[in-house]
């Protein structure tokens, strides 16, 4: 495969985002006759050619069902699929490849934990602790399982700046807490949560920690063993990979003890009408034909990222965030939503007198793609006292010029809408 070398500007050592931009075919497209300024990577990132090529290659040359046939293509597809698992293991520094369960997305990964682990351990009166800034996919599965088991939800409040204080975490986690399920990084505000301290506090009362890492795995270098959590879930499509693939990492001993999530082929050892027995993890949790080529695409995305200096990428995203925060507030009437100290490159904002949807429509005609709405976080919107926000998120291919285009489009929007 063609290698994209580390693209650091040789002269000043700066991160060369423009060079990365060229790796993403869609970013060369025009939208409404304007160059695309894509600022919605937190919803779904664009895909580098390396990912698209790897998937095309798999379909054209090495495709068959996995773990089934004794023929060349099936063996090849199986070894590629399992190699993808190993790539993911290394990427999050899991101890064993068997701890990596492929799902169709992060939502399924979180539902799997709730339905399998949650259902088997929760008793009436037990508590599941979440934060107020969770995505619906880390709220609703827990509501469903609490309803089924008689356990209760407790919610850690978010401060006005979008941070989650240790005090509020400490006062919400208690002796009845069995599960703490939190985002690593807020998809709306960019807040980086103090997950290490959350793990410490949760483990002190014997609770397990589930981390929704959809944004975390994109914006931070994740080492699940160093984090000390028990479950870590993320999706492929926010990590420059394809959609239709997600990952659940869980400690081997937890996966061993957990009942299956779905039944079907692949997840069994033996099937008899009297009683069936289950395969070992991860197969136990991968019923049916898995997302084979999406897994290969995800591995290609991770390979692509692995050729980039991660520290330089994080620094680049921090630079863009800081620049965006400084520039956005120069637009009259614009107010930033989410100004916590520790933040990833995701910024929500509102403009006085302009609804986020109207703003998004006007920005779109300037080729600028931002998210508008409740971002699947309605409880957070309520807590912040807004019905919706606009959100710009910055990825490896964004530049300061993209921020300038956004700001110019916001000025134009004021002319049209106000």
């Amino acid at each position, binding site marked *: 495969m063609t290698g994209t070398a580390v693209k650091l500007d040789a002269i000043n050592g700066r991160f060369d985002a423009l060079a990365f931009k060229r790796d993403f075919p869609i970013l060369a497209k025009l939208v409404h006759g304007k160059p695309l300024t894509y600022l919605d990577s937190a919803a779904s990132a664009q895909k580098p050619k390396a990912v698209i090529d790897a998937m095309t290659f798999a379909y054209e040359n090495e495709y068959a069902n996995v773990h089934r046939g004794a023929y060349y293509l099936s063996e090849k597809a199986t070894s590629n699929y399992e190699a993808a698992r190993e790539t993911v293991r290394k990427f999050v520094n899991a101890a064993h490849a068997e701890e990596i369960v492929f799902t169709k997305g992060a939502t399924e990964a979180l539902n799997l934990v709730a339905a399998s682990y949650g259902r088997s351990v929760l008793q009436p009166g037990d508590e599941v602790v979440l934060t107020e800034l969770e995505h619906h996919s880390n709220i609703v599965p827990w509501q469903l399982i609490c309803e089924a088991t008689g356990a209760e939800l407790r919610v850690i409040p978010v401060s006005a700046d979008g941070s989650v204080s240790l005090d509020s975490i400490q006062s919400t986690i208690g002796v009845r807490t069995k599960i703490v399920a939190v985002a690593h990084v807020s998809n709306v505000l960019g807040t980086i949560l103090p997950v290490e301290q959350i793990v410490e506090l949760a483990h002190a009362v014997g609770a397990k920690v589930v981390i929704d890492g959809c944004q975390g795995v994109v914006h931070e270098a994740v080492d699940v063993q160093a984090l000390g959590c028990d479950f870590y879930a993320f999706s492929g499509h926010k990590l420059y990979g394809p959609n239709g693939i997600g990952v659940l990492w869980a400690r081997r001993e937890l996966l061993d003890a957990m009942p299956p999530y779905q039944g079907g082929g692949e997840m069994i050892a033996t099937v008899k009408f009297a009683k069936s027995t289950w395969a070992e993890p991860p197969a136990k949790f991968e019923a049916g034909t898995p997302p084979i080529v999406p897994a290969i695409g995800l591995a290609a995305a991770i390979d692509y990222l692995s050729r980039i200096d991660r520290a330089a990428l994080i620094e680049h995203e921090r630079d863009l965030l800081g620049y965006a925060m400084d520039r956005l507030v120069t637009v009259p009437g614009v107010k930033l939503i989410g100004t916590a100290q520790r933040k990833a490159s995701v910024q929500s904002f509102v403009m006085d007198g302009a609804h986020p949807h109207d703003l998004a*429509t006007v920005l779109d*005609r300037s080729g600028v793609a931002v998210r508008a*709405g409740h971002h699947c976080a309605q409880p957070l919107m309520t807590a912040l006292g807004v019905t*919706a926000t606009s959100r710009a998120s910055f990825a490896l291919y964004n530049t300061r010029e993209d921020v300038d285009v956004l700001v110019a489009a916001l000025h134009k929007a004021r002319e049209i*809408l106000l």
Partner: protein
Amino acid sequence: MTSAAAESNDLLSLYQDVILDHGKRPRNARTVDAATCSASGNNPLCGDRVTVTARISSENQIEDVAALAKGCAISVASASLMTEVLKGQSVDAARRMFKAVQDLCTGQRQPDEAKADVGPALTAGVDRLAALSGVQQFPARVKCATLPWHVLISCIEGTDRATTETGSNA
């Protein structure tokens, strides 16, 4: 015309003055006194929410109608224009206007055609509502314009049922 100018024209025809005016200062943004029916509706994808109340006479005339809308300029303006146009009209006229609004917003009919559809008594109303037809160029925003009308229809159809029940009780 350059494509940049065309884009700008699309935006200006969507956000024309009457829409911005009604979006910022919606008329009849209240609850109707002695309402005979009410209905609420929302768009779960974007969070827009509209509540319509109306007082409908035994002759099926809309004596008063009001809408509380929370959302974007398009949905708030559409709700406001709707209440202005429908006050004093019959329930049947409201149904015909709903069809006209749908046709205008999706581009199935031009304003003149819509006027011919609804008949001479309602042409002035169509002229007012034609301001919404700018959404034709913005498929993602058509629902914003039609949401208040869907809520209105639930409101008045609810009344129809209530009226029938009252009739059968009597």
